[in-house]
């Protein structure tokens, strides 16, 4: 039986299953939180009872972290060079020898209650695209429950942008209480199906000729995004078995956002750039693209969970017995960095956004359960992805805590005997030295981040640009407070079955600055 037709395919949480399956799924939900907490509590206990071995572990771990930082920095630098090249390339020229006029782009912009300026800027960037706009189907996917104001904005956008594109549509999603969760997934899944019936079928547009881009409402594209995407689609080995992943920049409001927000945002960009160099580990994240035929066969985005952006990859992967991949585009799209009314609200927003991203851990039990149930997936692939998933979520939640908070623990609680050993005296010195070496890699990050900034507005002084460079000293704080802790928070919630709902990141741009 096709995995797609099993009851496991659309499972959102353990409660959607029965009997033994529910138990297995529940254990898999507990697994990431258990591993992270076991590591942290284990480090504390071992530091107390077996401080020598805790110190050995910490030194080995620090070395691993240093080498990993250097290793990933090399990937980052490589991807940065590739991205600079891709941003300079004339993609229209690249398409000259390829037949592509049959390709349509369906762009889904899920809209909740964001400011009209944000919606307009996104649509305007699509209108400014160099791609043949008659081949663009732009959809403002609204939610019925957001009320009058959102409706007015949708009407205004319809007035302004109808005629710019081949098709400009507004869909209105009514939440089905039975099997849907409020959020982006249910909205864009509804919207895609609406467009299939009302535009594609009606106009006899072939599904395999349509590339769907599921964006966020603040997504602003670079002028040749669709040319680049088309080229990637048409030159991919298996375009119908692939998703296409751009690199998310958070440049829309980067000059207004505070340093903490910038560091978190750019760190996210860097992580995606690193992952683009390791496509075998890549799953879809945030704004991504996929052929409509593939999407339709997959059954659109899952509606009963939060992180639909990555789940669509796992749905496709399991439905195709592992014969599915993500193609890295190494081309950017721009979104908003976290910015709210004031610094405190911004900090809260960063935390909540990071926790929502970390809630992507809900995909781990789904994927691992799928690996158990789908025997058609090659064993090696299962093993590799199991490692990638477990290592990824485990290191996200534990590594910064281990390095920045627990590194000196054996020295503090290891007792008199350990405290008088050479190892005890060398541990803080070694930890400090290894971390200092690792932090030197931040110089590369700082330099790359400066090179990726949008043009400096006149109102921004060179002093601020300089701060953009030295802001990287915040990394130990950001990776702990806005990395490990929200990840641990999300994993703990999943472990205890306190499932998270969708949280819409407030979008705020200070135009007066």
């Amino acid at each position, binding site marked *: 039986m096709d995995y797609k037709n099993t009851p496991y395919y659309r499972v959102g949480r353990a409660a959607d299953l029965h009997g033994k399956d529910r138990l297995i799924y529940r254990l898999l939900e507990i697994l990431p939180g258990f591993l992270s907490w076991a590591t942290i509590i284990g480090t504390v206990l071992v530091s107390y009872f077996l401080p020598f071995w805790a*110190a*050995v572990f910490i*030194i*080995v771990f620090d*070395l*691993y972290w240093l*080498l990993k930082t*250097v*290793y990933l920095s*090399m*990937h980052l630098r*490589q991807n940065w060079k590739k991205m600079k090249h891709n941003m300079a390339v004339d993609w229209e020229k690249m398409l000259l020898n390829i037949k592509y006029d049959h390709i349509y782009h369906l762009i889904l912009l899920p809209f909740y209650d964001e400011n009209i300026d944000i919606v307009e800027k996104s649509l305007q960037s699509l209108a400014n695209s160099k791609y043949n706009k008659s081949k663009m189907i732009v959809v403002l996917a609204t939610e019925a429950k957001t009320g009058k104001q959102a409706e007015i904005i949708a009407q205004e956008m319809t007035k302004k942008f109808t005629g710019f594109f081949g098709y400009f549509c507004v869909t209105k999603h009514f939440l089905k209480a039975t099997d849907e969760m409020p959020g982006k997934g249910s909205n864009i899944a509804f919207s895609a199906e609406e467009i299939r019936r009302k535009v594609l079928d009606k106009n006899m547009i072939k599904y395999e000729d349509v590339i769907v881009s599921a964006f966020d409402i603040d997504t602003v594209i670079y002028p040749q995004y669709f040319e680049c995407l088309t080229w990637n689609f048409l030159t991919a080995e298996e375009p119908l078995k692939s998703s296409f992943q751009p690199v998310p920049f958070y440049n829309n409001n980067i000059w207004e956002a505070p340093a903490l927000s910038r560091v978190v945002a750019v760190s996210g960009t860097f992580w995606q750039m690193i992952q683009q*160099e*390791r496509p*075998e580990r890549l799953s879809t994240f945030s704004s991504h693209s996929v052929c409509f035929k593939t999407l339709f066969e997959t059954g659109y985005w899952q509606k009963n969970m939060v992180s639909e952006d990555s789940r669509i990859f796992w749905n496709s992967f399991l439905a195709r017995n592992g014969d599915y991949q993500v193609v890295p585009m190494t081309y950017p799209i721009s979104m908003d960095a976290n910015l709210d009314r004031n610094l405190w609200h911004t900090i809260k927003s960063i935390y909540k956004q990071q926790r929502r991203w970390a809630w992507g851990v809900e995909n781990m039990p789904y994927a691992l359960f799928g690996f158990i149930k789908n025997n058609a997936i090659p064993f090696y692939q299962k093993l590799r992805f199991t490692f990638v998933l477990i290592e990824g979520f485990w290191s996200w939640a534990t590594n910064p805590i281990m390095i920045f908070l627990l590194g000196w623990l054996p020295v503090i609680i290891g007792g*008199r*005997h350990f405290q*008088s*050993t*050479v*190892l*005890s*005296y*060398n*541990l803080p010195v*070694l930890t400090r030295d290894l971390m200092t070496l690792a932090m030197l890699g931040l110089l590369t990050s700082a330099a790359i981040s400066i090179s990726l900034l949008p043009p400096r507005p006149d109102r921004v002084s060179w002093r601020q640009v300089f701060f953009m460079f030295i802001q990287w000293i915040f990394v130990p704080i950001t990776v702990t407070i806005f990395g490990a802790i929200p990840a641990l928070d999300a994993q703990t919630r999943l472990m205890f079955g306190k499932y998270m709902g969708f949280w819409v990141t407030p979008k705020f741009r200070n135009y007066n600055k």
Partner: protein
Amino acid sequence: MTMLKRRILTGIFSLLFLILAPIIIFYANGTIMGDDWNILATGGVLVRSMESGSQLFVNGKLKDITSFFTRDYFLKNLRPGVYTILVKKDNYNDWSNMITVYPNKVVESIVFMLPKEINVTEIKKFIVEDGLSSSSIKQTPKVNPNYEVIDALFSTSSLVKKYVSVLSTTTSTSTKYAIGTKENPIRNRHLLLWSEKDTAFLAWDGDIDSAPKIFCKYIKDTIKCDSQLIVYSFETKIINLDFFLGETEKILVLMGDKIYAIEAEQNQNKKPQLLYKGKNPDFRVFNNIIYIKDGVFLGQAEI
């Protein structure tokens, strides 16, 4: 990056990890390669709290000159054995210690050096108020209120009040306890200080596992802590003693016409350091200041 390139890179980094990890662990634990390629388990000595500008000698060889920011020095990779540590600074008493280094262990030694000349500033009994310095008006000296307070510290009644108040409520404050005796030691949290004839003792009455390092020593690779130690046996009878400026590991003693300071640390080379020499002096430590009374002279030591 191509898959092949990444695999090579992963291989190189994995190899680096496998090579470096044991080397770093052994090094961190004090295990090094000797001159003749044999594996050596070394130990270390942490020399702490040196005055800035001090010269540190190990077995007669200059190792370091301290600065304001580096007043501690960690002597590492020392082969097991006995080492003589000497710290010198101009115009200060030399400090020395003989330390036994054990494999994979670190011994801490806290340096205690006093200047050779310690100034004692007189606290005047009378002060002249400023302001009315006209030659026609004769200035009348006023009694210095600080003098009265400090002078009162030296009266027997205030001593009894100060120290005996910590005793049980059944104890009468009129009882003439000898201060700094075994029955009535001077207490600093869990530390008890007293003298018997010419010997100063220090004891710990808290949990033995949390006793300060000065109570502990290595015996066959394990640390053994005692609850009592002899600080020093002097040549003459101790008249008065107290903790040195609130510190728990150094003490002050009065013998005859001299006041000395000495560390409590177990150090074979330690010597009493002269703080004051007078005719019939006595001292009190109050609010982290050493007050000295010698006949009608009352002053404070400038340390």
